[in-house]
């Protein structure tokens, strides 16, 4: 019977790899917590938070979800569409700035 055992391209990697990724996720999470613990503020805080976030997300998607070993036709089909969200992000930043402007200009709630 042609069972699933004939399927040779299963995701088979050494356990050590997962443990290393796990360890790094712990370290990165600890780092992002320390950003808050030490009360860093401003651009330093925001850039550190975003950097640790991106590194953690990358580790999870690439190693744990095996995206690093998929064929490019597949990874690009999954990973490229979320980039459209950056456009959405841009639209909403401009929209919020406009809302804030109208609130300050016409309702006088601000300084």
């Amino acid at each position: 019977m042609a069972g699933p055992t004939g399927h040779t391209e299963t995701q088979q990697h050494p356990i050590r790899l997962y443990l290393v990724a796990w360890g790094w996720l712990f370290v990165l999470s600890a780092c992002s917590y320390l950003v808050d613990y030490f009360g860093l503020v401003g651009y330093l805080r925001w850039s550190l938070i975003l950097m640790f976030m991106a590194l953690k997300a990358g580790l999870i998607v690439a190693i744990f979800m095996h995206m690093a070993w998929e064929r490019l036709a597949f990874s690009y089909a999954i990973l490229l569409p979320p980039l459209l969200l950056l456009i959405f992000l841009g639209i909403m930043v401009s929209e919020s700035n406009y809302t804030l402007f109208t609130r300050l200009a016409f309702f006088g709630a601000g300084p």
Partner: protein
Amino acid sequence: MNDTAMKEALPATAHTETAPSTGWHGIVADWSSDQRAFKNVSWGKAMMWVFLLSDTFVFACFLLSYMTVRMSTVVPWPNPSEVFALTIAGHHLPLILIAIMTFVLISSSGTMAMAVNFGYRRDRRKTAALMLATALLGASFVGMQAFEWSKLIAEGVRPWENPWGAAQFGSSFFMITGFHGTHVTIGVIFLVIIARKVWRGDYDHARRGFFTSRKGHYEAVEIMGLYWHFVDLVWVFIFALFYLW
């Protein structure tokens, strides 16, 4: 269902016709092959990824609306570092509960990744045990979230008001963490279901499933894992953008 149908579900023929998989040439070759575009990905895995992609957009909408209300309010935003602080053994620790929840969820992702690995090694006892450990960690995450919700509700946080500042804090908080907690809960339920199947040896004996009556195999563990890692992935973004920002 016969063996022909099973072969259809598995990319058995893909190997002979597999074009180079690297670079743009590989992508173009895969997509223009007049065959399946995803050569060595089974339909089950592809569909889970497509679902996760759509879920990405759902969570992105929540996080973007949170950004919009936070950027446009004229009332100061409550400081999450203080809101989620706890005093443990006389020490005032900022955001400590959220940090613990983060470590718990990352650990559950680690045990899930190992479960997938042992599944492909056909070690069903270790696979099931690791999946149950994952479910246990996930359940404790939901438990801590329930504690966090009760604490905030007791302190007077509502979707329409809170004692510290911008009213939108409550609505964003309950919507985002509530939707994520629901995902974790559903994940825990499915982890237990799949772990039971693994433990019983369903994937060793190709026992037919109750719903589709398809024969199961260990890839089900990996697909379950994709969902679970996604839940962890979303938490990475929530942790950074809602709690730390």
